[in-house]
């Protein structure tokens, strides 16, 4: 009989105990009812309305007069090559937003994680773009992208990349990158804040253990840092994806989806269909398609993170 046969478990961590059951039924009801009601009125009901609109043909000018058309709107969308472009643009926009803002955020977080003089100030300053209102950000970037007097044009000219007058926001091949630069500038600080917070959770002992085991910097990152921050990065990916899918103001103010639809994301398309073409039904269908995509992404996220947890023995 070995001494380990009946090993007492290491003391379990304090179980976060659910409160005992003595609260009557009305306590949770009382706590939750106001917000539930609120969300029902201001989110639930409009959402249902939108869904109903999406199966009708309705004009913005007379939204009460519907003609039920079934899934005709969806069918037409799926056949519409312009909408295919919308999906493509949205996908590119979202993927690049996620990759670039997380990549840049990670880089920034790693830079700001170490010890150096003025670290606190640097950490604060780097997050400024996140605090800047999107409308203001759009305006300054429009000016910076100005073909004649914008900084980017000057820069391109200076570097000999262009002979001047490059029409960044109106050149089909540059417009989306320009929008992306603006968006990423705005959101990468958010990733860096989140990743920075996650980095604080990397036990220094683990790093040291890896160093003693002879790992170089990159190996330490891969063996210790990355696995620890991965859940945070995953959640970040989800959030940025969902937010990118619904980002409106910056794109609308900068290009309104142009040129040639090269920056026409789902939400821009939705808005244009609703408010320029006055076609609420089709617009609602676009919205629902976007929502379905967002929900699918979310489910994929949960599925993947569950799998990752299983793989690492968490469950």
């Amino acid at each position, binding site marked *: 009989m070995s001494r380990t046969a009946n090993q007492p478990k290491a003391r379990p961590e304090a179980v976060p105990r659910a409160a005992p059951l003595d609260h009557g039924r009305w306590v949770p009801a009382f706590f939750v009812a106001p917000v539930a009601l609120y969300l029902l009125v201001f989110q639930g009901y409009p959402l249902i309305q939108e869904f109903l609109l999406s199966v009708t043909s309705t004009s913005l000018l007379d939204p009460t007069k519907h003609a039920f058309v079934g899934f005709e709107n969806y069918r037409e969308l799926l056949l519409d090559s312009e909408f295919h472009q919308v999906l493509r643009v949205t996908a590119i926009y979202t993927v690049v937003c996620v990759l670039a803002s997380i990549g840049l955020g990670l880089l920034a977080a790693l830079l700001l994680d170490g010890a150096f003089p003025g670290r606190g100030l640097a950490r604060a300053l780097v997050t400024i773009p996140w605090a800047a209102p999107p409308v203001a950000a759009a305006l300054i970037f429009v000016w910076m992208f100005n073909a004649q007097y914008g900084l980017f044009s000057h820069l391109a000219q200076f570097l000999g990349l262009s002979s001047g007058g490059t029409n960044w926001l109106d050149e089909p091949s540059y417009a989306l990158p320009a929008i992306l630069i603006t968006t990423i500038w705005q959101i990468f600080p958010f990733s860096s804040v989140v990743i920075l917070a996650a980095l604080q959770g990397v036990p220094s002992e683990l790093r040291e253990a*890896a160093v*003693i085991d002879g790992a*170089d910097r990159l190996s330490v990152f891969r063996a210790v840092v990355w696995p620890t921050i991965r859940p945070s990065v995953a959640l970040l990916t989800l959030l940025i994806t969902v937010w990118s899918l619904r980002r409106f103001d910056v794109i609308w103010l900068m290009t309104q989806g142009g040129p040639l639809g090269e920056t026409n994301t789902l939400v821009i398309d939705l808005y244009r269909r609703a408010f320029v073409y006055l076609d609420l039904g089709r617009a609602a269908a676009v919205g629902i398609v976007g929502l379905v995509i967002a929900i699918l992404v979310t489910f994929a996220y949960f599925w993947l993170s569950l799998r990752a947890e299983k793989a690492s023995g*968490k469950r």
Partner: protein
Amino acid sequence: MAIKLENVTKSFGALTVIDNVSLEVGDDEFLVLLGPSGCGKSTILRMIAGLETVSSGQIHLGGKRVDQLPPSGRDMAFVFQSYALYPHMTVRRNIAFPLIMRQFRWWFHIPVIGDLFKRRIENSPEVRGLVERTADMLALTKVLDRHPRTLSGGQRQRVALGRAMVRQPSAFLMDEPLSNLDAKLRTAMRAEITQLHQRVGGNFVYVTHDQIEAMTMGTRIALMRDGSLQQFGTPREIYEKPANTYVARFIGTPPMNLIEAEVEGMTVRVGTSVLPLPDGAERPVSGAASGTGRSRVWLGLRPGAFGIVPPGQGKSLAGTVTLVEHVGAESLISVKLSGIRTAHDDDGAPTDEVMVSVPGYSELRVGEAVGLDCHLKDFSLFDQDSGLRVGGRAAEDFTTNGRVGAIRTAS
């Protein structure tokens, strides 16, 4: 591989946390760094490992100066308090990691190819064999393909040991590796680490603040306080001949009683009783130096060195019982002495209580008047001003036997 620290000092900014520590242990010793929280034990260990730089002084390992080498160049293994297992790797990977790192080439960073190579190293017969032998030795074979978080505390502990052992380092450094375990498991793991040391040899440096761990595991103990070394010696030396009142009260539960006394020639006077010093006891020389022939000392007596007798009997000290606690096979009795100061703290803040342990269930009651006989079989005398040991006698005066360092009879 001998470990030698020479005048090692460490400061964080203006704060000096290790103050000129020197010590040296020979091959295959089990050195324990002991001391209260914050005394600098971990800092010393981390300097040996190379996780902290030294501010001044030198560290030698097997005759080679290592204090300027990076951690990976020192050939030491480190077992962390929280084990620091890589949570997303299986036990096998955890143990194999140092071996993979040993054969690492920069291009292993290239995603797919690097992984392939790493897997190849991991599956090479030598690595596999070594990992499996290690696992076998630690009874981890069954859990090799599980992840750390599914293991019990003891198993995790052993994985951490395994990861250290597999490299066959020249020194094992451990920072309170047992403090996360519960009492029972701790006892079991204590024995396992001791046996590991006996089996694999090499130097062990072990940090703890638990005197029982230190006494049972170490072949040498370095007792620290506030960054400076208080005493460095075998467990027995430290128990029986504590270098100062701090050591005296740090080691032993309940701690040694320090009773105000005066040494005069071959006698020691406690309160009104005059007791003869036994043969072979060292006596303080300070008193002689001061010309009076008398020295005021603290008489250090372990709680077991008293006999409880009816009050007023013989040369006994008079007192009253203030607390009786029954702890298993013995009873602990606090006795308030009348008119005699005692020290409860290494800095000599005075009280007048002593703690006495007697075997079995004592029927004494709080408030009862008792007499205390002092048995001067083993005792220590400390200077009242400096707190340094100035005399005394070990139960069996082992230093004269020339058996220093041979206290651990397990071999």
